[in-house]
């Protein structure tokens, strides 16, 4: 019983980064830009979140810094895929490697490694927080409560407003959008920057609010899992949130299993998120619907001079 309650209480810490990163990636990919760079941007968000927290001592500002830093680095990605028309797979992978190198270097040079920070205090939502079993779900930091609002805002913008419609049009058929007078490059830039800010926030969550310190490569493949989540969710934000919760539940089990004294090598337990991701990818492929729902122009550079 106690184990169950503490397991539930830990779910948001694992689920929220997945949810925010997947939301950011969906925003970017709906504009037709294949976003494989999540792992790198999360690292940038994590490092600069910790750096800002150490320098300014304010977790809110630290999260803003995480968003800003990730958006800034994603400008490089935007230049590569929008204007220089580099293959989006190569650009995304290179950006991940670039960010891994950059954060590994800066984290050590600036002495931000292994410096604990305070994070955000838990806010108890009384009376929900006094409920048995699920009470700990309502003793979370502010960002956990804000995440559903962020989802509402982004989804409303994407699906209920004209700019959101235009962004999706650019992702489905850039030729038609261009002919209709929309700026393909402009909308894609917007989508990349806004998406990167959300992915950076996810990285900031992991470092500033969850582990509360910076270690090189600390995201451990969560960015890639977020990419898989987007495929799993078929580019729908609500399904991504559900998928993130599922992954959060599974990952929150890991420390619980250890505490419950399961006699299995910890490394097998640590494999679980990756194995589950693989399983989910296979399940999606067997269901065979992922190709239908992906944005029409995903992964294609838009080149006006090459009319098709």
């Amino acid at each position: 019983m106690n184990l169950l309650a503490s397991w539930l209480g830990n779910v948001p810490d694992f689920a929220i980064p997945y949810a925010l990163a997947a939301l950011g990636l969906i925003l970017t990919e709906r504009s037709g830009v294949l976003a494989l760079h999540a792992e790198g941007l999360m690292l940038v968000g994590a490092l600069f979140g910790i750096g800002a927290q150490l320098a300014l001592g304010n977790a809110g500002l630290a999260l803003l810094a995480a968003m800003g830093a990730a958006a800034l680095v994603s400008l490089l990605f935007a230049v590569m895929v929008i204007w220089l028309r580099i293959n989006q797979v190569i650009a995304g992978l290179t950006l991940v490697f670039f960010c891994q190198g950059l954060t590994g270097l800066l984290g050590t040079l600036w002495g931000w490694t292994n410096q604990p920070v305070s994070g955000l205090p838990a806010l108890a939502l009384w009376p929900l927080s006094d409920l048995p079993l699920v009470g700990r779900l309502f003793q979370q930091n502010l960002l956990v409560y804000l995440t559903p609002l962020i989802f509402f805002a982004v989804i409303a913008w994407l699906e209920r407003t004209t700019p959101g419609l235009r962004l999706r049009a650019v992702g489905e058929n850039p030729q038609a959008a261009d002919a209709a007078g929309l700026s393909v490059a402009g909308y894609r830039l917007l989508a990349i920057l806004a998406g990167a800010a959300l992915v950076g926030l996810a990285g900031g969550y992991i470092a500033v609010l969850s582990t509360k310190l910076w270690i090189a490569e600390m995201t451990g493949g969560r960015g890639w899992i977020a990419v898989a989540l987007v495929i799993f969710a078929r580019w729908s934000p609500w399904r991504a949130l559900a998928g993130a919760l599922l992954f959060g539940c599974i990952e929150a089990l890991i420390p619980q299993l250890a505490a419950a004294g399961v006699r299995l090598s910890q490394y097998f337990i640590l494999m679980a998120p990756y194995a589950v991701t693989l399983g989910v990818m296979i399940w999606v492929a067997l269901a065979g619907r992922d190709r239908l729902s992906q944005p029409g122009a995903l992964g294609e550079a838009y080149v006006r001079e090459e009319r098709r």
Partner: protein
Amino acid sequence: MLEPLSAPLAEVASPRPRQPLFSRRYTLEIRQQLAWPWQALILGLALLLGLGLSAAILVLAGVPAGELLNEFVVATLFDAQSLQATLFQAAPVILVGLAGCLAFRARFWNLGLEGQMIWGALGATAVSLFEIGPEALRLPLMLVAALLGGLLWALAPLLLKLRLGVNEIIASLMLNYIAANFLLHLVFGPWKDPRDAFPYSPLFRSFERLPELLPGLSLAVPLALLVAVLAWWFVALSRAGLYLRFVDANPRVAGAVGVPVRATILATVLASGALAGLAGFVVAAGQEGRLTQSFYQGYGFSGILIAFLARNNPLAAAVVAFLVATLFVAGRNLQVFYQIPFAMVQLIQALIVICVASSDFFIRHRLRRSQGGAA
């Protein structure tokens, strides 16, 4: 041809005032082709830019500017001992580079090079640990086990892609993490050297390690070069290589004219996995002499980078791999002498790839000032 006639006419028709600099309109045009000296010049400039940026970052990170050339060129190539170290380092890097080339030729994004390296090293270590086969055959058996280990670990994402259309980038990356955790399980658990407290396997016996061909030159280096030539033969001269070019150009047409598309992709990607496994064997049996917990780190990215920079040509990959090995050795020196983390090596590689990838834009496009107002 029409220009001498039309230009004066246009002048008469629209006497256009000289535009200020920033309101001029430019259009991008796609070049049909560019003479190769220009291509080489653009590529060279991009490389210079990448190296310049890297040098600037190194200086900012605390390496004295005057020492850069010394650390990177003199200290790695012009000193017999460091040249040995560089060659020694080059062998596994060449092998992962070749693995990258093969996979990309089959249009398979094999990001699982590190996982395949791990399984190669695991295979070789298992042969040593369980003393399979007589002493004389032990090393060849370890080599075969390494090839098989890498091959099998590449088989999973390959089958998932061919059968189900699962994205191989995610699948092979997830398998990397799984392999890495399994490696940790072994070196901290059942395969740990009982003699001390560190997470590694027992040392290989002397006949289980790659011998030196000449004093200071490990057998690994000629082995890697031999594999490079074989890979070049495979993609450039063999029948499979011809099929591969068909498949790369257009899989559907290739299938229609009778090329065994699946078999070609299967063989090439499995070869890629096997070579990555071989790289794991070379690190374990050549450099470390045992299974260690993080021997594979940095190789996966380098393999992809080398294949990209060498445009998937195995012989060019060997050359690029040698340069990357120089960077590895220099990176370790910087770590020792200036406390600069090894991540610097990855940053430099990424910067160079970004610059070279960007240079392609200038090879394929040109900027032209638009004539008239209707651009």
